[in-house]
Structures are given as C-alpha cells and as structure tokens.
C-alpha cells in the first residue's frame, strides 16, 4: 500500500509539470488553433538559461524570476518573428513551421549549452517536509509551485481586464478588434505567458529527469496526451489531464507495462482519446459551418 501511495504521489508531482505544459499548449491553441510543437523546446531553452544563471552564482529564486521574465520575452519574440508571418499560410505549412521551430530550438540548445547531461538544483530541502513518508520535498514543492502558478493564472484570466481582453481575442479576434482591443499585442502576450509557464515547468522537471537536450521529448509527449485527454481547448481539462496522466504513467509503469514501456501509455492514451472521445473530457466538439 505504501509503495502504491508513493507511486500515486510521485505521479502527482510529474503530473503537475505535465499540467503546466498542457495548459501552455491550450493557451496557444486557443489563440492560434494550432498545437505548439515547440512548447517543450522553448521550456528547454529556458531551463538552460536558468541553469547557466545558477551556475554563475545567482541565487535560485532570483534566477527563477529572471528566467520566467526572459522566457516571456522569448515567447513574444518567437510569436513576432516566426509565427505571425506564417499565420496566413495553409494549415499544413503552419504545422511545418512549428516543427521547424522545435528542431531549431532543440539544436540551438545543444549547440550553445552542449550535449552533456547536467544536474539541476532543486530549491527545496532534501529532507521530507512535514515528516511525511510518501512525498519527497521536491515533489511536494513542484505541486505547490504549480498550484500557486495555476491560481495566479486563474485570477489573471478571470478578474483582470487584460485577462478578459485575452480571452476575448481567443474567442473572436475580429469582434475584439472592433471593440478596440489590440489583437496583435494580446497574441504576443499569450505567447509570452505560455513560454513563461513552460519555463516554470522546465525548471521543476529538470531536477527529476536531469537536463540535456532530449529532456523534453518524453515530457512533451505526456503533455500532449494530457491536453488531448482534457480537451485541447479547455484549460481546466488540461490541468486535470496533466495530473491524471502523471499518476497513470507511474501506475502503468510500475504495475502493468513496466518502466521501459511507460511512454507507450501516452501513445495509447492519445489513440484512445481519438477513438472514443475526440474532443477530450471537457473540450467542445468541433463544429464547422459549411
């Protein structure tokens, strides 16, 4: 029983990271109607930036905040330079641009920061917090940081006029423009936010999986599965999907398919969702005007 609970709680910690990345995917999806394949690699670059700052002697939380700010800027830049010129192209071309961006960011990270595996520090103490036996303090910290971030995002989107404007743009860009919202700025803001959320996720997962250029491959696959499971246009669904996938991954890996085939859980989940509930748990079924 103890081992089982250990797996469940460990899964929740990984799931918090998947939830963040899935939420970042949903944020981009809502404004562009595309899945940002480069989301993981943006987070990878952010994590390398954080690692370099920390190695240069910057205190952890200062580096954390600086990385989130830099990542926001990077997201805005990517939207402005790479994505916006492509948005008028056919859908296939846009997906290809996303893939290209993913490959470029990944190879740039390898080129600049090297292919050696690095360890990444955890800001949380190494003894278990609150005397519990089930959860390492880093795992508890990951869940805590994620929940705080989700709460902040919720407040931002729900209770600020900027958040309202962003939601309006995601819903209906033309009408938003007519009521005086700067649609381009909101798009850039959305990209910046999702890159910042991704940066937090990257810094949280790096102490668990170690930092190297292939770090985000498996993590992103789980995040894709989480976003599809929850519904690709549903922020709440993405968060729930993330935690579900995290726990499912651990339980399947330990009790059913074995750790070496853990990743197939993600594939099975993606195909399963496509077959049985294409819109995901909380997504709007796609309806197109003919």
């Amino acid at each position, binding site marked *: 029983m103890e081992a089982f609970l250990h797996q469940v709680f460990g899964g929740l910690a990984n799931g918090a990271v998947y939830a963040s990345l899935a939420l970042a995917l949903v944020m981009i999806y809502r404004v562009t109607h595309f899945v940002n394949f480069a989301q993981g690699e943006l987070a990878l670059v952010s994590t390398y930036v954080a690692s370099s700052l920390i190695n240069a002697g910057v205190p952890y939380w200062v580096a954390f905040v600086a990385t989130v700010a830099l990542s926001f800027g990077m997201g805005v830049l990517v939207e402005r330079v790479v994505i916006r*010129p*492509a948005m008028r192209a056919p859908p296939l071309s846009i997906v290809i641009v996303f893939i290209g961006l993913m490959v470029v960011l990944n190879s740039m990270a*390898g080129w600049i920061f090297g292919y050696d595996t690095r360890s990444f520090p955890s800001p949380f103490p190494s003894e278990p917090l609150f005397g519990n036996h089930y959860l390492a303090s880093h795992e508890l910290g990951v869940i805590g940081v994620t929940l705080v971030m989700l709460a902040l995002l919720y407040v931002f989107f729900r209770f600020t006029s900027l958040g309202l404007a962003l939601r309006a743009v995601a819903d209906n860009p033309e009408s938003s423009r007519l009521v005086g919202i700067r649609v381009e700025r909101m798009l850039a803001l959305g990209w910046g936010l999702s890159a910042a959320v991704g940066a937090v996720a990257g810094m949280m997962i790096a102490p668990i999986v170690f930092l190297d250029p292939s770090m985000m491959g498996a993590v992103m*696959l789980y995040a894709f599965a989480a976003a599809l499971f929850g519904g690709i246009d549903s922020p709440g669904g993405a968060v729930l999907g993330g935690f579900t996938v995290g726990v499912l991954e651990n339980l399947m890996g330990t009790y059913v398919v*074995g750790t*070496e085939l853990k990743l197939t859980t*993600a594939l099975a989940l993606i195909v399963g969702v496509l077959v049985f509930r294409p819109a995901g748990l909380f997504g709007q079924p796609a309806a197109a005007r003919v």
Partner: protein
Amino acid sequence: MRTRAVGVAAVVAVSALGLFGSSYHLFQLTLVVIYAIALLGLNLLTGYGGQISLGHGAFYGIGAYTLAVLVHRTSVPYWLAIPAAGALCGVVGFLFGLPAVRLGGLHLALATFALGVVFPQVLKSRGLEALTGGVQGIALEKIEAPLHLPLSPDQWIYCVCLATAVALFAVAHNLMRGHTGRAIVAIRDNAVAASSMGVDTAMYKSLTFGLSAFYTGVAGALGALAVQFVGPDSFAVFVSISFLVGVVVGGLASISGAIYGALFIQFVPDLADSVSKAAPSAVYGVVLVLSIYLMPRGVAGSLRSIVTQPKEGP
C-alpha cells in the same frame, strides 16, 4: 510531356552511371534511391492528401525490422520479404489512420508524433527482444546477385532498389493522375465538397495513409538490406523529421520532388555534420521554416516555375 519523358530518361541514365562509381558512392546513391521511395510515400500522404505525419520513421522502421526478422530468423528470401514488409506497413498504416484521419490534421500530427517517439522504446522492450534483438539489433548478410550475374553485392542491391523505385514511382504517377489521385487531392482541397461529390473521405484518407505507409515500409526494407543492420536507435523521431524535411524541400504534391528531397537529406546533413554535432538538425529546422516562407512548393515547384515562366509571362 516530352520534357517529362526526357527528364525520366535522364534520371534513369544518370542513376545507371552510379553503378560504375566507387563502392562508397554507390552506397550513398543506394540510400538516395531508398529515401526517394520513402519520401514519395510520405508525399502521397502529406503533399497530395494534406495530412501531416511525424511518425513515418516508425513505418520505415517497421519495414526494416519486418525484413530483418523474416530474413534472419526464418528462411524467407529477401525478394519475398520486401513486399511482405511493405504489406505489413500498409495494413498497420491503414489501421492507425482509421481513427486518426477522421479528425483534423492536428490530431494526426500528434498521434503520429507519439508513434515516432514511442517506436524505438517498443523495439527495445523485453517482450519483443527475442524477435528484434533488443538494443543489439539484427545484423544481416550481404545479398548476392542471382544467376551468376557479373555484379558485386553492392551493385546488385543498388539495381534492386533502382528497379523497385522505378516501378513504385510509375505506380504513384499513374495513381495520382487517375480518379484515386483526384479524389485524394479533392479531399485535401475541400473535404465537404469532395464528400458531397460521393467521395468516401474517411475511407480514402485511411487508404492514403496505408498506401503511404506501404511505400515507406518498402523503403525501410530496402534500407535494412543496404545497411545490413537494423537497430532501435536508427529509427528515432529524427528520421521522421528528416522525411518531413525532405518532402517539404523537394516539393509537396510533386512526384519528382521526392528525388530532390532524397538528395537533400542524404548529402546536406553529412556536410553540416563536419561543422558541429548540432548542425544537421539546426540546418533541418532552419530549412524547414525558410522553405515555407520562400519556397512553399519546394525545389520541384521552383524548378517548374523557372521552366514554364517564359510561356506564362506577359
């Protein structure tokens, strides 16, 4: 039409010249021919069908492993194992496409991406180790030319690949000109209009996926013969991305584009590799993005517009 016939004759003649090259160059050319088949397969799906696949490396791998297992573990001759590998891939592709292609291209991209990432892990898994050789992979022997033909094994495998490629290119060319091809393109351009004209869109999309996987699987089988080795890490997601790069650079929805794309993915990474370990994929990524902006119809489309411009100009 005459320029096309001249072009085809020129390509075949130049390819035949390859037989007299050194064995290293012959090997490179063999791979170009094999990649051309694989890219043609992906182009049927992506260029003509408008469906993106980020997992064709997996189909290439399934083809390669099917041949390796059949030839190495049983006594099936290689010339039977090649179509068998293609057929298996075709069936797997059709079944995989069945749920995925009913939805938008986005879901297909995600599902195939997952397939591409997961595939090497499945090959290494303990359950399949007896069959796939696990991390070690399977080493294959060189195939000898039949009937005492005066050809070295390298020259023979090149001939096999070339003959297969000519046949498969001819089939694809004819298929895409006929009603099947028009149905596939119609679905890409306007699925609603196509289905109101009586085209069974879901069936055609799955069939396109199966056909595409068949081509890529045959290429994988030939690749295993040429390299004489299959291992799980030869079929990582990078292969899938290479294929996508090749299709986009060569030219979407172009039969001849597969050849330009194959030349690109065979020679450009080698050149870039001498600069840095990261350079090949960096080049891929940059070329992928720039092609979309500057050369959306690839090398084939650009060449065509250069050739035909004087006639269309004012």
